Each structure stands twice: as C-alpha cells, then as structure tokens.
C-alpha cells in the first residue's frame, strides 16, 4: 500500500508569530518545526503502511529552510519526502497549496493520502478536502480512528453529537484529528537514518501548476481590547474570592 502523508513545516508555535511589513505574510524563520498536528498523520501512515506492507512518502510545500521539520517526520520512520519550495508560492492560499500538493501526490501515485485537519499556523481547514476533490477521491475527514480493509478504508468521523462510521474504497484521502494515534518519538537510530533518506525537491514548473491567488490581507488592525480585572496571589484563601464572584454573578 502506498501511503502519502501531507506535512507542513511551521515557525515554532512557542515563539511569537510576526507578519511581514507590506505583504502581511507570516514571517518564516529558516529553522521551522514539524507542525505538531502532522505527527498524528505520520504515525497513522506508518502504522497503516506497516500493516499493509506499504511505504510512506511525505509531501510538503513551503519554504524549506534547513528542512528540520521534514527531517523530524523522516526520523519517525517515513521512507522519503517530496518538497515543493518555490518562491512563487509565497502567500499562497489553500487552493494553490492544494493544487501543488495534489499534483505531487498524483505524480507519486497513492492508495491513501493522510493529512491533519488543519495546520497550526494557517488553519484554513480545507486543504484535505480540496486535495480530495482535485484527486477525484472521497474525503474521509476528522478521523478519530482509521482502519484499512480489503481495498477500503473505514474511519470514525468526529461529529457534533459523537461520531459516524464512514467507509470508502481506496484510493482515498483521510484527515486525522489529534489523538487518532499516539505519535512515536524518533529514536536515535531514526534520527541518524533520516539524514540519509531521499528528499526530492520540486518546483511549480516541474509539477505544471500555476500560482494564482485572488485573496490578500489588506489591513491589520487592533481588536477592541479586553482589559484585565483583579489579580490576586493565592495565600490559601483565593477560593473564597472565586466563590464570592460566582455568587455575585448568580451562578450560586
């Protein structure tokens, strides 16, 4: 089984994000990390590939920098990576991103595409669905559990009330929520091996995709500020303050 996992390298969420003057694009340092959400997709892909004698190929779009994020995913055990880093792609919207990823996936060939439900830095939340449409495949989304059977895939799809069981024949696209599986930590051997694994670089021209974006951020303004109220140090009696406020607000 050929599993392709979409991954994204993002600025470390522990550091404050800033926007570039003029374009309002997110500033991306050369050292980025693997989006935490993608670790679930990579782990799911590795487990399904192992169960079905398959391979896991990573596909990633964006400024590669030192490529640390993709190496993290390779260190978990993925076999190889395809990277599309093209300056023309700066400021891409979800559609262009999806066109690029779908083109790379199509070229690679696939039985199952796995992606997170949304990235941590952009969170448009529609890329897996767009990729599915462009690949003319079913999109089984928001999976909290994934199983493959004889030429088919079955998931538990998160709903407002609980979950639905959704089934489709392969090839298919699945988006996974955090918690679908417990992601492994790379081993020392994994990290060393990752350095030797193939990373294929592609451009827009290689894929025959044109970047066209009809959206732009025209203005950044301050939101109406919410001011802080009282701040107290707990010296053993702070809970009484909370009780008093709950009484005042008629919750008690």
């Amino acid at each position, binding site marked *: 089984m050929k599993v392709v996992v979409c991954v994204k390298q993002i600025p470390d969420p522990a550091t404050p994000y800033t926007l570039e003057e003029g374009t309002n694009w997110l500033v991306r340092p050369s050292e980025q990390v693997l989006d935490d959400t993608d670790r679930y997709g990579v782990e799911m892909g590795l487990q399904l590939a192992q169960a079905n004698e398959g391979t896991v190929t990573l596909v990633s779009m964006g400024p590669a920098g030192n490529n640390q994020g993709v190496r993290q995913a390779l260190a978990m055990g993925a076999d190889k990576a395809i990277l599309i880093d093209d300056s023309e792609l700066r400021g891409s919207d979800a559609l262009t991103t*999806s066109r690029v990823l779908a083109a790379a996936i199509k070229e690679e060939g696939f039985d199952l595409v796995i992606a997170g439900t949304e990235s941590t830095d952009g969170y448009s939340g529609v890329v897996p669905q767009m990729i599915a449409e462009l690949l003319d495949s079913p999109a089984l989304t928001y999976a909290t559990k994934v199983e493959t059977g004889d030429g088919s895939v079955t998931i538990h799809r998160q709903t407002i009330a609980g979950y639905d069981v959704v089934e489709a024949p392969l090839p298919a696209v699945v988006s996974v929520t955090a918690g679908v599986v417990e992601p492994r930590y790379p081993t020392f051997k994994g990290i060393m091996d990752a350095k030797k694994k193939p990373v294929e670089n592609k451009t827009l021209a290689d894929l025959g995709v044109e970047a066209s974006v*009809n959206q732009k951020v025209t203005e950044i303004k301050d*939101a109406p500020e919410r001011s802080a109220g*009282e701040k107290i140090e707990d010296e053993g009696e702070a809970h*009484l303050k909370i009780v008093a406020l709950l009484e005042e607000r008629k919750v008690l």
Partner: protein
Amino acid sequence: MASVWVFVQEENNAPSTLGLELLTKARSLGDVTAIYLGEGGDEALAMLGTHGASKVLHANAGDALPSAPVSAALAEMVATESPDLILLGQAYTDRDVAGRLAARLGVGVLSNASDVRLGNGGVETDHEIFGGSQIAVATSSDSPAIVLMRPKSIPAEPGDGGAPEVSTLELPEAGASAAKVTESHVEEREGPQLADAAVVVSGGRGLGSAEAFEMIEKLGKQLGAATGATRAIVDSGWVPYAKQVGQTGKTVKPDIYIAAGISGAMQHLVGMKDSKTIIAINKDPDAPIFSIADLGVVGDVHKVLPKLIEALESR
C-alpha cells in the same frame, strides 16, 4: 441586489444554531438562498424563512457522506445562477463542502471569518489573529466568494421573512467510489453542551496529569457547567477532542469561564475570550490568560481547586 447562498445543516430536526447565525448575517448582505441539508420538515423550512431565506434548496444525502454529492450539485447550480457569495460555517461538514466546492470551481476559501462585507468588486472579511488581539482584513475577487464564518460571530435572530420558496437540490448518484456513513453514534454526555453552556470550566497543561482533570469534572458538575480543555491536553490524550476549546476546537461565549492551569496560548484565547466573565487560576503570574481575566488567581490549581470544590460541597 447581491445574491447570497447560505449552507445550513440540520441538527435535531431543526436548522443548526450556526446556520441561523449565518442566515442572520446573510440577510443584511442581499437576497438569501439557503442550501438546507437534512430531512427538512415544515417547521424547519419555515424557520429558514423567518431567519431571512427567500428561497431554499433542500438536499438530503441519505447515507452518503454529503460533501462530494452536495458540492457537485452546487457547482452546477453556481454555473447557471452565479451567486456573489456562498457563506458556510467553520464546522465539520461545512468545511468539507466548502473545500470540495472551491476546488471544483477554482476559487479560494476565506476561512475563520468573524465578519463579512460585500463591496465594490468583491468580498471583504475580518479574521481574528494572534489570539484575537488583532484583526486581519482580507479581500477576495473570486466569484463566487466562499467564506467560512466562525460560530457565534453574530447572534441568530429571526427577522420578518415569510415562507420561503422551496425546491429540491438534486444530488448526483453516489458512484462506487463514494464515501458512505454506515453508523451514527451519539456519545452519552451528562450536563450541558460545551458550545451552549452558561458556565464552562476548562483545564490545561497546568493540571499536570490526565487524572487531575477529574477536579475539572467535579467542579463542572457542582456548577452545572460544561467542561472544556486546551489543545495541549487534548493532543496529550488526557481528554477527547470534543472538549477542545480554541481555534481548532469549539468557540464558547458563556457567562462564566473558569480557566484552570491554562496559560492562555493564542490558539485557546480565540475560542473563549468573548466569555462574559473570565476567572483564571495559574501558577505563572505572567501567563497571558491573566491579561483578559476578570479575576486572576496566581496560585497552584492543585491547592486552589480542591479548596474551591470543598467550599462548594459544604454549601
């Protein structure tokens, strides 16, 4: 007059609250057609009218996962009807339909909008960024523009609309490769729903362990509250994803929000900062959560929460 299409999903035999919010917004922008997905009883359809839809396109996907057939049918309608704007919610099936439809039409999607305006030559949207401290204004020249609006961006209010003109949106035959819903499970849940609760008690990484979330549950029960969580502890597997409050989880606007052991990452703040009263308990005096808390307690949740629970117990 601008033509606005609004995607509304059925929930418990009625239009979802999110759908009604979208209709409320849409009727201030132009003539509204509701794309209604569900059984579509008379009362439900009438509600779409009172909330602003002059027309309803009713679709029932049966046991097919709706996104593929609905977006295929809508793409055909768009070609003949040319709406200016298609409005959907930042919600599971809405996102699926928006993504597929946009890719089919070759247009973009403006996600996570908190407001939408129609102006000369396109659509303009507001997006809360950096935990809601700033607003990015975006424009799109796509036609139609497809916008996903965050839940609770505007309250749902009935207007003076009459009975809508209802027609059926014929869905294409689900092919052999279509996704099917074979079972639906409702998870047993005690107490109020997170999205609608008047009081929400949430826990974060400061709890230290999955077991400590029991304190949150206990306090929640005492206050008749729903319980929530940060992405960090959902990702750690301490609590299910359904409890996640924030950018990639649920948006809540309760009367009281108690944040215990939550530092206030941007991702979390955007989902709860519009709560009427915020009470925060955290060890770190510099935690960002304190900048929006009405009552901030700098202290250890393992000391404050047991005392609070005991004080409420003895009442």
